[in-house]
């Protein structure tokens, strides 16, 4: 853990070498979800609600998904760009070091400016929490925290699958984007509005609905069954097959030799 903070401080120092450039990049990152949110705003200027969800409820939903995503992107960026690591042979260097390879990939890359998205998410979350009539209790506070953390774990799982696939394809696969960037963008609305098919997929295959739609219903008081609080925890089981797949990939790794 100490070593991780060592790496973190190196990455911070690296980013601070070019302060103006860093701030501009962070601002640019902030604008990506901001324009996406403007889209939501414009829709709700015309429509009072969508499938029973109000503007503030959708904002809360988006803020939670976005915060999870940006935390995952910040800490797991090494996996998100793993195709490059394989391509330039840097993974060979990782394998010969006396540390766990997941740990080293995590440390290899932290693009701090990416957290511009997280800043946007935090502002949106604060605004939504102030304006959303939530009947607060300890269980609902826990639900909110679990939703955010569960989301981070799920995004991390998808990154692991992406990286694992890179062992076989050597190139990044664009369609995985639909599970990361796609969830970031389309997760702005509760998943139920996309219909049964999408909701089923996001419940049983990649369990995003367990950290978004179902606990959200409890959080905003559609029902009072506090067991919903545990759904994001259950969703975290998803990371196990992802990790096994990654391990499987590592065993089959052949250096590109470059």
């Amino acid at each position, binding site marked *: 853990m100490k070593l991780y903070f060592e790496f973190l401080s190196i990455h911070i120092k690296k980013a601070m070498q070019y302060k103006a*450039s860093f*701030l*501009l990049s962070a*601002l*640019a990152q902030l604008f990506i979800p901001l324009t996406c949110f403007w889209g939501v705003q414009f*829709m709700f200027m015309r*429509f009072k609600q969508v499938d029973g969800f109000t503007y503030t409820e959708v904002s809360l939903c988006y803020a939670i998904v976005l915060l999870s995503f940006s935390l995952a992107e910040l800490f797991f960026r090494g996996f998100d760009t793993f195709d490059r690591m394989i391509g330039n042979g840097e993974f060979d260097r990782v394998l010969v070091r006396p540390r766990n390879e997941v740990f080293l990939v995590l440390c290899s890359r932290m693009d701090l400016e990416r957290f511009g998205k997280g800043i946007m998410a935090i502002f949106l979350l604060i605004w939504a929490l102030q304006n959303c009539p939530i009947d607060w209790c300890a269980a609902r506070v826990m639900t909110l925290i679990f939703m955010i953390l569960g989301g981070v774990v799920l995004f991390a799982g998808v990154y692991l699958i992406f990286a694992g696939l890179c062992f076989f394809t050597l190139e990044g696969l664009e*369609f995985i984007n639909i599970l990361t960037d796609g969830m970031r963008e389309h997760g702005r*609305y509760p998943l139920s509005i996309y219909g049964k098919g999408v909701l089923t997929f996001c419940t049983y295959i990649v369990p995003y609905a367990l950290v978004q739609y179902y606990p959200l219903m409890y959080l905003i008081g559609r029902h009072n069954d506090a067991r919903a609080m545990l759904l994001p925890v259950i969703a975290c089981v998803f990371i196990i097959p992802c990790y096994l797949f990654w391990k499987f990939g590592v065993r089959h790794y052949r250096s590109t030799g470059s």
Partner: protein
Amino acid sequence: MKLKKYISFFRLRCVTGLQYRAAALAGISTQFAWGFLIIFAYHAFYRSDPTAFPMTLQATVNYTWIQQAFLAMFASWVLDGDILEEITSGSISYSLCRPVDLYAMWYTKSLSGRISKVALRAVPILVVAALLPAGYNLTAPTDLPTFFLFLLTMVLGALNSTAFTLLIYVLTMYTLSSTGLRSLLLTLADFLCGGVVPLPFFPPALRRICELTPFAATSNVPYRVYSGDIAGTNAAFAVGLQIFWLLVLVLGGHTLMKNALKRVVIQGG
């Protein structure tokens, strides 16, 4: 004769682009999933309040599919890595030695790069989208004139979009490395041309302003002409505006580039 060298640049780029068939397939499946999610969301809003829709649901669905099919043509963030590399690495000096107009060469490069990407992706997306169940499918334009108007505005839109990208490259010549500023501008441009939600969904006042900007002269016009959302005198006005912005962007970009080249500093050896 003079045009011939640009045509060969164009062909060279297209052939290179066509090599990446697997990437195109992956792109197509992503764009399908993306398109479906957008359309499902519009359906949900439509169920909630059909009267609040600023364009017909079918026009919105068509807009979405055409947008997905031609994404590589209009997506503002699709920049040519080679050109950016040329500027920052200094190999631009080689290009300057060539007996070609740098603006025209880059323009041809960018345009052909996009066309080759779209050539692989557009047709499969459009065909499958047309075969989907009613309500989710791409429908044909109402009549032949609309279709030809769509083609015309599409060409003008693509030319405009490329001219805008050229401006971004020229900007890079001035600032060298400003990935942040660049991606900020591109994100905004994408929003203003209706990349996140179509312009009719904008608040009325903002929509009227946006429709006059060069951003709206790119993908916004053809996508909406297709379903008849822009027709008659509005269409004539939109085409006029497209031509106007094309002239401004190309002439402006060309002049700015000339200016930048006057004080060109080649980085490194």
